[in-house]
């Protein structure tokens, strides 16, 4: 890279520590530092248990035995990956770094938010007992949206607690990734609960949960994770 020849820049002597810092150091205690792998394992386990609890409350979809097992398991796996991968990227930094990989996390959040909508619109097999709503009843999807976002709450809040004070930069994208991961868990719960098989409903509501959770998380979570 070419540029002007800059002179050697002077570096000042730093001032003495402020009285506030000195006071803090006077009562310095050992702190438990962040352990990203342990945190992600705990967060995934707790979130899955919570998701299972929500599903148990709502009950499994009635047409589960009529649907192609390959589609049911494949779509479930996709939702599971959509849950774990953004959370991992949002919480686990590369070796030797303190800050998580916000650029990769941002990519995962975007891919998850758009990908599940596209997949939902494209792939929606139905069985004899599946329900269809169509545009005229599209508004009834609000219940699914609420359920999905509520399911996202635990991974998002848990991630925010684990990452508090850890993100001087990139916090909004990391928060979006937490939201997208949580939204995918919500999508997994809806996948196993909701028997509506419209492309519109599955794509825009079930898939849309990911984007809505990512946006809400990006708006609210940085207050907790920013270094202040």
């Amino acid at each position: 890279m070419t540029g002007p020849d800059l002179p050697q820049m002077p570096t000042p002597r730093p001032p003495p520590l402020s009285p506030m810092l000195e006071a803090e150091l006077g009562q310095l205690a050992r702190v438990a530092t962040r352990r990203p792998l342990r945190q992600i394992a705990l967060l995934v386990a707790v979130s899955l248990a919570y998701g299972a609890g929500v599903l148990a409350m709502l009950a499994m979809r009635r047409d589960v035995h009529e649907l192609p097992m390959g589609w049911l398991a494949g779509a479930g796996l996709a939702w599971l990956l959509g849950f774990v991968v953004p959370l991992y990227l949002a919480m686990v930094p590369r070796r030797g770094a303190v800050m998580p990989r916000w650029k990769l996390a941002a990519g995962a959040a975007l891919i998850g938010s758009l990908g599940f909508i596209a997949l939902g619109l494209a792939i929606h097999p139905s069985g004899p007992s599946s329900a269809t709503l169509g545009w005229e009843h599209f508004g009834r999807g609000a219940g699914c949206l609420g359920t999905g976002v509520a399911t996202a709450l635990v991974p998002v809040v848990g991630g925010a607690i684990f990452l508090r004070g850890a993100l001087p930069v990139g916090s909004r994208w990391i928060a979006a990734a937490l939201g997208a991961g949580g939204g995918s868990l919500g999508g997994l719960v809806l996948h196993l609960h909701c028997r509506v098989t419209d492309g519109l409903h599955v794509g825009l509501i079930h898939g849309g949960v990911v984007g809505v959770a990512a946006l809400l998380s990006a708006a609210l979570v940085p207050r907790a994770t920013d270094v202040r």
Partner: protein
Amino acid sequence: MAEAKELMQRYSDGDAGAFRELYVLVAPRLLGYLLKMARERALADDLLQQTFLKVHRARGAYVRGADPLPWIYSIAHRTFIDQARKHKRAVVRVGDAEELPEVAAAITGESDDRRDDDRADPELVSATLDALAELPAQQREAVVLTKLDGKTVAEAAEIAGTTIGAMKVRAHRGYEALRKLLGKPARPPRRAAGGTP
């Protein structure tokens, strides 16, 4: 002197002496960065204290075995940005010579107790600092980090929370603007010895 990550680990374990050593190790470089960004000694001192206070409060977020310097630089970057937004000014012109730093340092950001070459030309330093102050904050930061603080483009991008491509563009535009402000012609391209035409 111990490495930053070893000091950070001891500090996290409750060793106040390790924090002081970390301060001695990191603060000169960090203050140099903040002074070039804020252009006012009192403000840079204040930002430095705020940065270390934030590091102290967020020390539980440190990951053992990791290099804390990019994280600390990012905290300083964010502290400066917040301050600039708060006061709607990123640049404060240096009014008199007393506000210029007293101790010279190498272009790598090391303080002068680590090197034995000559001191900087004060007039050239002053002209360069004034020219830097004319740059938009993002370009100034890119030039300061990559050219003056000796960071790689990847490290600078990580600190500023942007992509490597964006940091390259900012640094390039910053260099070009700085060259015009300093009235220096572009370097002629180097001909490689024995190179093909």
